[in-house]
Every structure is written in C-alpha cells, then in structure tokens.
C-alpha cells in the first residue's frame, strides 16, 4: 500500500488536458501514492442524469485527497436539453457537483493563494503575495432564496420595520436572497486564517466585510474576529470594507497578506486578486475541510480548447503544490513551487496567454525537468 491514495477527477473539456499535465509532474516528484480516477461532470449528467455519481462519492471516501480538473456548467434549460432522452421527465435536475462535494465533505475553507512569480509578464505588480480564506458553506451562498415571494415569508419579514416599504410590491416583481452567518462557520474560517498567518509568519490578517451597512451579519463576524484576534497578538488584525478593499487591491496589493471573507465577498476579492497575478492560467484553489480536501484550478472547462492542449497548466500545477502542502509533504511542495517559479522566470516555455506557443504538456514537461 502506498502512503497516499489520491483521487483524480479530470472532469470535462480541458480538465483532461491539465490532469495529464499534473500526472507528468507527479510522476517525477517522488510522491509515494496510488491514483484512482473518478467520474464527474457534464458527460455524466447527460448520460446518467447525475453529474456527481454516488460511486464517485464512495470512491473519494476511500482516498486521502482529491485533485480536480474542471467541469462544464450550463444554464438549466440547456441542462434539460442535453440530458439523455431516455432519462427525460423522470425528475432529474442538474446541480453543481463542486457545491455538492463541498457540502458532502464539509470543505468549509476555500483557500486562494495569489502570488506574483518573478518574470510573469501578466503580473500587475511585483511582490504581490496574497492568501485569501473564503468561507465556503454559507453567507450569501447559503441558497435560501425566494422568487416569487411566498406570503408567509413576506408576513414574517414584516416584523422588521424596514420591510414595510415592500409590503405592496406584487409577488412576481420582488425577489429575495438571504445572507446567513453562523458562529460555527465564522469561527472556523477565521481560526484557519489566523493559524495560517501564525504558521507562515504573515504580518496581517484582514477581515473583508461591510459591517456599517450589513450591521447584523457583518457585525456578527466582526465581533467574533475581534475576539479571536486577541489570541494572536503578533499578527496585525485589520478590518476593511469590501468596497475599500477593492480599491486597495488595485492601489497597493503588496501591503496585504492574509484576507478572510464571507462566501460572496471572498469570491469577488479572490477573482480580483487572481487577476493581479496572471489570471485564470495561474489561479489555483483548495477546498479544505477538517479531514479531507480537494484542490483545483479555478478556471472552467473551456470547451472550445478541449483536447487541444492549449491551456496553461500552471494553475493546475500550483493546485498540485497546494495538495502536497496539505498532505504534509512540505519538501515536495517547495520543490514543485521552485520548479514552477523557475519556468516562469526563464520564460522559454510559455502557453498562448503569456504570448508563447508551447502546449500544456510542454510546460508540464519543462516543470518536471526542473524537479
């Protein structure tokens, strides 16, 4: 038996291409692991009416960690149109496999490191090294939404004086989303962020919120953060409004270290931050729970590039590096990151987004050669 058993979910489109790239590197890096492939994505929605088959969930439970490629996602009408005709009318509904995996395995941390590697022509500035902890399970994405608005909900909301203004709006002319924050979820994402900052000796942890307007939910997480910050006196705790943060990330991103935010705000600032260091070709992420994790590049399946080996694998390779860190293989992780940084710096082997014409696998092989 190998030390690790790793689930590989390539998914759709370029997911297959970049998974091959990851395997080229993993084979060279000297990780003692067995790999198993699992089914996920659009193809299985079409064929089986289920983009995340039960057998894949069972498979993941028998592994230590998961490396995930990309999946194709389309609107509801298209999903129904592309479903296998034999399965139509039987109540199959498309759902996001990634969201389901987050829930099933309680992967409450979405970790988005954004680092400007030297020599990357797409770097907005040098010395950007941001790490974003985005809460992955609730907030604005808890999914408690209403359209049209049921009477009981409207009735209940009228307890609040400010609802009076909407009392008479016709039912089909009003939509409602909720922002739900719990002490458990807020505490644990903050704890992860602070512990990370302490472990890697980062100067500051910034909570990105809007407590002056969203008094109840914003104020709620702010209070928890302020209390927790007292336990980390060596770390500077900052509070930034989401709008101001958007400005600071453009103005002086190099002054920030660890950012922590609720689901929606985290989504926004991590995509912004990723763009500052090269965008989709470089953006990697980890979905991390207490005893399981799933690592992926943030880009989608890019169907029009599917099978062309055109896309930049660096996002996937950095996701692989995150996976090695999470497994505790720090030396291997450092080795991989060093190899990636070297390839970026030398600038000889580059995919189209960097102005080059190397293939996905060319880049992977170049990284592998530097291990």
């Amino acid at each position, binding site marked *: *038996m*190998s030390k690790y*058993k790793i689930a590989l979910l390539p998914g759709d489109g370029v997911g297959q291409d970049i998974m091959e790239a990851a395997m080229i590197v993993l084979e060279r890096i000297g990780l003692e692991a067995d790999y198993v492939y699992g089914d996920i994505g659009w193809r299985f929605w079409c064929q089986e009416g289920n983009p995340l088959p039960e057998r894949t969930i069972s498979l993941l*439970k*028998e592994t230590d960690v998961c490396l995930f490629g990309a999946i194709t996602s389309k609107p509801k009408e298209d999903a129904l149109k592309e479903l296998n005709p034999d399965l139509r009318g039987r109540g199959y509904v498309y759902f996001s496999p990634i969201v389901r995996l987050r829930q099933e395995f309680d992967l409450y941390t979405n970790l988005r490191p954004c680092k400007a590697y030297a020599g990357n022509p797409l770097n907005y500035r040098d010395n950007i090294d941001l790490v974003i902890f985005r809460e992955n399970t609730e907030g604005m994405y808890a999914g408690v939404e209403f359209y049209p608005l049921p009477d009981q909900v409207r009735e209940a909301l009228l307890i609040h004086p400010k609802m009076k203004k909407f009392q008479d709006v016709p039912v089909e002319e009003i939509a409602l989303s909720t922002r739900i924050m719990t002490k458990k979820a807020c505490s644990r994402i903050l704890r992860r962020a602070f512990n990370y900052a302490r472990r890697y000796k980062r100067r500051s942890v910034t909570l990105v919120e809007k407590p002056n307007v969203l008094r109840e939910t914003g104020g709620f997480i702010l209070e928890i953060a302020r209390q927790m910050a007292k336990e980390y006196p060596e770390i500077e705790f900052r509070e930034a409004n989401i709008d101001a943060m958007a400005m600071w990330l453009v103005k002086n991103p190099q002054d920030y270290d660890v950012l922590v935010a609720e689901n929606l705000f985290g989504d926004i600032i991590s995509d912004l931050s990723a763009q500052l260091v090269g965008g989709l070709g470089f953006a990697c992420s980890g979905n991390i729970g207490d005893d399981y994790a799933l690592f992926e590049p943030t880009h989608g399946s890019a169907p029009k590039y599917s099978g062309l080996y055109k896309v930049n694998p660096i996002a996937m390779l950095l996701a692989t590096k995150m996976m090695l860190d999470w497994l505790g293989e720090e030396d291997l992780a450092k080795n991989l990151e060093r190899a990636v940084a070297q390839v970026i710096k030398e600038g000889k082997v580059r995919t189209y987004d960097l102005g080059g014409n190397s293939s996905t696998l060319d880049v992977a092989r170049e990284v592998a050669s530097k291990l």
Partner: protein
Amino acid sequence: MKKSRLKGRLWVLCDSQGQLLEDIDTDQIYHNAYLYITDVAQMGQYALGSLKGWKDFSRKASAGDIIVAGRNFGAGSSRQQAVDCFISLGISMIMAPSFGAIYFRNAVNSGFPVLRSAEIESLVRNKELESGDIVKVDFRQGQAINITKKISFTLESMSDVQYQIYLAGGLFRYGRKLR
C-alpha cells in the same frame, strides 16, 4: 466525515517485556464498577483502567490514536462500555489478531473500526510495530503501512456490512438506511 484510510499513533498493548497482552477481557478494559455510567463522554477516563501496566492509558492517549492488542481482545462478557470508552477517547481503531466474538459485534455495531490481522504477532515480536509509531491503515483494501519504520503489512479488509455500518455511524442508522 467517515474515511476508510486513517492515520494515527500506535499504542501496542504489551507487558514490560514487550510481549503482546492476550485475552484482555472486558473487565480489564472497563470495570464493573463503572457500568452505571450512561454518558459516553464520561467513559473514556476508565478505559483499560483495570489492565495491569496500562491503568493510566486514558491520560496518555490522544484522539486519533490506534491500539494494537494481542489475540482475543475483548474476551468475556458483553458490555457496550468496553467499546464506548475508546470512542469516548477518540481512539480511531483497534487492530488485533482476533477479538472476542461479542466484543467484535459491539464494536462493529457502534461503527467503531476493529480490524483483524494475522501479521500482528510477528510484527510486534520483530519490533516492526511499536508504541509511538505512526501507522496508516486502509481498511477497505486491507493494507497498512508503518510510516515511521517504512514497513507495509496486511489486515483482513472490512467486510461490506461492517463498512456500511461504519459509514452510517452505527447499526441503528444503518437499519434506517436499509428501509
């Protein structure tokens, strides 16, 4: 989340000469005197409390630790507390060449991993498994490795029924899923 691959620090139940302790009965695991306790959280402190040489086990063990015992672990009468006390301490599994029949059932029914391995006696004799070693076990494959000593060994893999009960979190929950 229930996983089929667990890693933990070992406690090998042996005597002062390093011989595996065999036939550890449920009285030694959890004494009569504490049978009145019904709150699982209170049981951990008495685990192995009557086993000579191991009476302070509950103070030394940490959550995630793995116990290795000699043959016929859990001999004697059926008492659920003899399993629950280990759950209380967060012990992640027990491996032994064999278990008392009723003890084994009680553990399976609590969703607590108990695994049999014919190799344990020789591994302990050859000092290839010692207390403090970090071991990783895949109980679906029936394989394990001693990460500290870089030695692999095999176990009897968990049967489907045992695994399903484990995933469900116990016999009653499993029963509900069956229906």
